[in-house]
């Protein structure tokens, strides 16, 4: 699965997107955990970042599928 990163997360990863292996459906909480396992430098940020699934906010108990468009980012600071 392809995961897009923005702002602090992109900076910490040194890149705008990462890959994790995903074939089965998982929860958003499990997604945070797997990002931290695959990219330890993101573990702390991934645990508390905002998660979007298909361009909409997603929460820990909800399901992520391998085909979803997923992004991780800090609380927004636009305007």
């Amino acid at each position, binding site marked *: 699965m392809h995961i*897009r990163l*923005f702002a*602090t997360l992109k900076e910490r990863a040194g890149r705008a997107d990462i890959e994790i292996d995903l074939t089965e459906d998982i929860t958003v909480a499990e997604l945070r955990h797997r990002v931290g396992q695959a990219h330890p430098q993101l573990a702390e940020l991934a645990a508390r970042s905002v998660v979007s699934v298909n361009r*909409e906010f997603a929460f820990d108990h909800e399901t992520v599928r391998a085909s979803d468009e997923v992004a991780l980012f800090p*609380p*927004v*600071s*636009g305007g």
Partner: protein
Amino acid sequence: MNSTLPTLLDITRAPIDLNALQTSITTPLDGAVVLFTGTVRGRTGDEITEQLEYEAYQEMAVAKLQQIADEMRAQFAGIHGIALVQRIGVMALGEPTVAVAVSAGHRGDGAFEAARFGIDRLKQIVPVWKRETRPDGSSWIEGDYMPTAADRR
């Protein structure tokens, strides 16, 4: 009826032209336009800001601007045109970084309140971030609002 009312939503690298915004959302029914612009503030207390750089999750940001426009029309029935424009890229002091514009028949028809609501919501739910450059370096600014399920369409 809403489908005939102008709604301008944009995440853009181009400078924001306030005259063009005013014209584009003003209908023949309108006698009042309220326009809010955020600008790059050079001083906050003792802190100096040299420039700001904005980035966006473009596709989701546009979808969230549409959600905000829909929320504005639902809450403020008297308004007509809406513009929600966030500029991204590098911006210098004093430049408009964001614009929220609302037209209505008269100044008491909710345009002031809708514009305030629009900028408040934009700062909560539109995925855009700014990187601040100060004399001592630069860093990403994180907001303080964590979205909830109520912030989805």
